[in-house]
């Protein structure tokens, strides 16, 4: 078998089962692809020794007839996950040199299921960004290009390294995290599948915190079946995360029948934005037609507070970030600034945080500090939390009326060029998350499925939003959409 790195999880699993291939062969194929793809800057800490050791162990387990669900499958891990003894920097200078003494619950569950870690993946610093341009490692680059144009494009963010690596076949799948769209937007930009589960499905323990009430981990994969396999491994109750749900995790893969007859799919009118590109509008209409042809009923719905989701998010997320990032003080881990003679502890904090945090992170920490400060707490923070209640109620009303899933575009545009947004004000960049951020605020599961190409040959994604805890049904609807859309395009190799 050649090009083993191009396989998906399910295909590779079946080939391993049949003995057609070994995990060591799969892993070596991925490691070679990674080494040849430095131009994408997706893998920022490579761990070939760990990978080969785990691959050998996986081969032994497979031989012994004791293969767990992801045994021998090589994957990448976003740098936000703490991995024992391996640099885990959240793409920040302030965590330079940090090697955790512990393993995040999600990456531990993946390892326990036999998955092989190839290395750590690039991302926006502390997951704050939509283009992977705020990383201390430099930009991750999309493997996609606009026709023959050699302008470098963003893989999206914050899970940009994960998206680039999966789309370029450097690994079979990768972990991502999603606070406002950080799995779904990069998945859409790079023609792969990404699901953010219901808040509480995946343990947040050991994942560097950005906004704790919004953060969720999820898989980024080459297709919906792979997402089902990997999500099941990542989910489950964890006593170390007090918001982790004590619910049984179903066999998501077994729920992929592709049968969505009689399902009610809502089309929210508020997602039809002014100035939306005609291509996105058409993709959305085509997606609705595909689901209808598969037997679903399409209904128009209203989510009246949609417009206020982004402003509410840009109060709540920075507020939580300013609290969470207070721990980076140059004392317990990471990097401390060089101090001048006579500098006291306050100068140590201020210089360390000024040097260690990038511009966007500093901006968000300070906005968060402001909205939480005396005199503004009610006007900003409490108001935003009230609006969040209303946004969630919008969804509850729609689901109570019998809607099974909601179809929207995943992003307001296709991928853009690295550096093209540098001159824009921060709010312009925030608009990337306009269709995804509502889902985090409401704690719902959302999945991005590649559904077409724009005129320049770049991938576009559709998002499906499901009921809380109903990832199985959501994945099945996504599976039906995937089957109908028949997206098979891959980026041409230039790197």
């Amino acid at each position, binding site marked *: 078998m050649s090009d083993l790195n191009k396989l998906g999880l399910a295909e590779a699993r079946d080939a391993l089962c049949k003995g057609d291939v070994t995990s060591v062969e799969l892993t070596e194929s991925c490691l070679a692809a990674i080494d040849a793809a430095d131009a994408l800057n997706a893998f920022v800490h490579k761990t070939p020794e760990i990978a080969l050791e785990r691959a050998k162990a996986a081969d032994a387990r497979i031989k012994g007839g004791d293969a767990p669900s992801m045994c021998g499958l090589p994957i990448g891990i976003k740098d936000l996950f703490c991995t024992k003894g391996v640099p885990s920097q959240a793409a920040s200078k302030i965590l330079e040199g940090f090697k955790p003494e512990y393993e995040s619950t999600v990456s531990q569950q993946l390892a326990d299921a036999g998955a092989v870690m190839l290395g750590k993946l690039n991302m926006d610093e502390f997951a704050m960004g939509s283009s992977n341009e705020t990383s201390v490692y430099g930009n991750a680059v999309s493997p996609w290009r606009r026709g023959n144009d050699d302008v470098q494009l963003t893989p999206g963010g914050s899970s940009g390294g994960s998206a680039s690596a999966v789309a370029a076949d450097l690994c079979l799948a990768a972990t991502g995290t999603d606070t406002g769209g950080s799995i779904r937007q990069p998945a859409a930009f790079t023609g792969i599948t990404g699901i953010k589960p219901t808040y509480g499905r995946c343990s947040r323990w050991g994942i560097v915190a950005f906004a704790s009430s919004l953060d969720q981990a999820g898989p980024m994969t080459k297709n919906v079946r792979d997402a089902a396999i990997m999500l099941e491994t990542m989910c489950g109750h964890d006593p170390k995360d007090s918001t982790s*749900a004590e619910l049984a995790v179903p066999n998501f893969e077994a729920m992929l029948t592709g049968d969505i007859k009689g399902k009610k799919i809502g089309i929210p009118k508020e997602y039809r934005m002014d100035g939306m590109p005609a291509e996105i509008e058409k993709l959305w209409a085509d997606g609705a037609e595909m689901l209808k042809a598969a037997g679903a009923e399409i209904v128009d719905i209203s989510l009246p507070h949609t417009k*206020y989701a982004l402003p509410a998010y840009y109060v709540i997320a920075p507020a939580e970030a300013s609290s969470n990032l207070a721990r980076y003080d140059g004392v317990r881990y990471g990097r401390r600034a060089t101090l001048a003679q006579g500098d006291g502890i306050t100068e140590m904090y*201020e210089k360390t945080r000024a040097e260690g945090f990038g511009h966007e992170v500093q901006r968000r920490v300070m906005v968060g500090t402001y909205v939480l400060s005396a005199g503004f707490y009610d006007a900003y923070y409490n108001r935003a939390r009230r609006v969040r209640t209303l946004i969630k109620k919008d969804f509850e009303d729609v689901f109570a009326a019998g809607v099974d899933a909601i179809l929207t575009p995943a992003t307001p545009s296709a991928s853009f060029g690295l550096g093209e947004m540098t001159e824009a004000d921060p709010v312009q960049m925030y608009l990337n998350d306009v269709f995804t951020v509502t889902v985090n605020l409401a704690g719902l599961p959302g999945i991005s499925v590649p559904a077409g190409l724009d005129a320049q040959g770049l991938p576009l994604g559709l998002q499906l939003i499901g009921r809380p805890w109903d990832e199985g049904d959501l994945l099945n609807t996504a599976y039906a959409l995937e089957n109908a859309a028949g997206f098979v395009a891959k980026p041409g190799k230039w790197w």
Partner: protein
Amino acid sequence: MSIDQSTAAKVAKLARIKVEDDALPALASEFNTILGFIEQLNEVDVEGVEPMVSVEPMRLKRREDVVTDGNQQDKVLANAPDAREGFFAVPKVVE
């Protein structure tokens, strides 16, 4: 609400991030752009609406108040920029 340079300086101080004086005008202007965007929330009628505390209605679990962890001083200190004699070391705090 408009943020002036002295407010920007105060916020930077509260956040313990050193911002040079010549960077304050740009910072204040960025805050104003973001806060201008956030001001849209004032259009929403939130009368009688409870602020969200937990997105999924679940009761946080309680456990026995007992020691579950410990005896790993080396691991705790392993990543410290400056650890001495079993302690985190910082610049002198008390005169």
